[in-house]
């Protein structure tokens, strides 16, 4: 059933159907471009214009008044000397890299486990994807409570006789960042799983049968058939996780607010604080521009690395 649904899924159509006229379409069949205008207006007003203007303001000392004077690279110089900004840059990269690696790997394991013939597979798929439905602000609040000293996590650990592992989960500046990462993995691992499940169901049955006939065991079949053909799923899963985790805001905002000290400060968090709490619009925009450049660079890098590993079935 799921296989059929996946095959009917839009991304999975293998051969695009050509327009019946083929070649160049005549004037009767070329859609007039005014159909594009409403989308362009919304997109221009909400995304294009504000982004361009934000990029401009990052080179000014704008504080919200009418006057904003051009200050060149001053904001960026200040950023390098700003301890909180440097820490947030480091944390943002650490979060993005750890989340992408761990969440993608766990998602793959879950997908492999739930792509087998176990009876509970449909129920388990539904359950493991369920937290994805919840607002990040709510899962953040929930985990804040889970991590409370003497709270649910500590209680479970001491029941299991592991109370030595108890930590000040969100209060210790060496641990808080990892605690947040753990909660985000819990929240989003279903997303990676679902992408890999779609990828697994795309692999033609015949390939496994051919490999089996050639005497390949289960491990060999995974390594030589499944692994290479999951390349595209890996590209999508890692790209989505990477871009989402670079912009991570809600969970950090509600769980620690960036503390203790600057240990969980992220770029999107200090951007918010500088702009909307302290009114330093120019400086806040400069932080956002740095974030944009990191996202663009990492997406480019990551696409060109993982794309190489892609094979078509």
């Amino acid at each position, binding site marked *: 059933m799921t296989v059929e649904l996946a095959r009917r899924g839009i991304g999975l159509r293998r051969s695009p159907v050509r327009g019946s006229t083929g070649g160049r379409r005549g004037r009767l069949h070329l859609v007039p471009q005014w159909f594009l205008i*409403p989308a362009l207006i919304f997109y221009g007003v909400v995304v294009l214009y504000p982004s361009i203007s934000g990029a401009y303001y990052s080179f000014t000392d704008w504080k919200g008044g009418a006057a904003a004077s051009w200050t060149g690279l001053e904001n960026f110089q200040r950023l390098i000397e700003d301890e909180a900004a440097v820490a947030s840059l480091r944390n943002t990269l650490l979060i993005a890299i750890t989340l992408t690696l761990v969440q993608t790997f766990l998602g793959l394991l879950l997908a492999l486990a739930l792509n087998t013939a176990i009876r509970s597979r449909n129920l388990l798929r539904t359950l493991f994807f369920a937290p994805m439905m919840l607002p990040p602000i709510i899962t953040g609040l929930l985990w804040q409570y889970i991590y409370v000293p003497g709270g649910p996590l500590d209680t479970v650990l001491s029941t299991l006789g592991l109370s030595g592992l108890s930590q000040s989960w969100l209060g210790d500046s060496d641990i808080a960042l990892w605690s947040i990462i753990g909660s985000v993995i819990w929240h989003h691992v279903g997303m990676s799983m679902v992408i890999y499940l779609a990828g697994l169901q795309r692999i033609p049955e015949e390939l496994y049968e051919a490999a089996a006939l050639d005497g390949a065991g289960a491990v060999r079949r995974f390594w030589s058939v499944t692994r290479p053909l999951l390349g595209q799923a890996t590209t999508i899963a890692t790209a989505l996780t990477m871009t989402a985790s670079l912009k991570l805001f809600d969970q950090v905002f509600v769980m620690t607010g960036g503390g203790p000290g600057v240990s969980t400060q992220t770029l999107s968090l200090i951007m918010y604080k500088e702009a909307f709490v302290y009114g330093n619009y120019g400086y806040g925009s400069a932080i956002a521009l740095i974030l944009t450049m990191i996202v663009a660079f990492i997406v480019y890098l990551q696409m060109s690395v993982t794309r190489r590993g892609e094979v078509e079935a």
Partner: protein
Amino acid sequence: MSGTLSRHDTPATRGRPRRPGRTAADDRRARRSRPRYGMPLLEFAMIPITVAYLFPLYVMVAMSFKTTAEIGTSTVAPPEGLYTENYATAWTEADLGRAMANSVIITVLSISLAVLVGSMAGYAIARGARRTSGPKLMLFLLGLMIPGQLGMVPLYMLMRDLGLLQSHASLIIFYVGSLMPLTVFLYVGFLKTQSSTYEEAARIDGASWWQTYARVVFPLLRPVTGTVIIVNAINTWNDFLTPLLYLAGTPNRTLPVAVFSFQGEFASEWGLIFAGMVIAALPILVVYFFLQRHVIRGFGGGLKG
């Protein structure tokens, strides 16, 4: 495939009539999977993993039925009785009914507009001149790369200058615009795989462009419209930062903002906070459990490039 004898065709599965409720795909998968004796082991191994995974959700629900005193002494045990006072207090104190109505209004209007405007744009790009369709799509895809933070301040100022802050309209405009990249991408991707025969027939029969779009193209887009609605609606419903900036402190605030400010007011009354969280989480979870196959397919298949 009939006639080939694979090692996986065990006497148990070959030639036996299918059990009711099983599809050919199920049978194929059953054969593909590793030897059967491994399955009970895996099934068994998934139990502790699933229990651990669901533990936080259990905590959320269990705490919402406890009195403050009870929470002070036990954080993991099930509630002693069903103390529902938390729900009543949360509902009235945080005005969650109003917040839920706001969330529904904003989500429904944003998604409807995004579907209309996005499908029109997808139609124009996929069925316009081939030479320019690539650059036009790229212009929209750029939006997937630009973090919202970059335009956050100028957009906030623009909304303020237009006098739209604190209104539903400000958020609806924001969502329609920021949903365009993914929406247009999905519609163009889908239309490129569809034949244009019906549209051309309609044109030859004298239908106007609008009639062709509304009567022929839009109905054809139904499968991808489902994906667009599901993925966009969940992201919109759960969004937090922009509604916080635009609507905080007004009666127009959405559910996530209401729960957040409620948490600020009753900082240590976890029972109340959890009741508020359950109320906010429930509508979307109910919809999810009814539409789970579509939701999972939408997220898994719809987002591919």
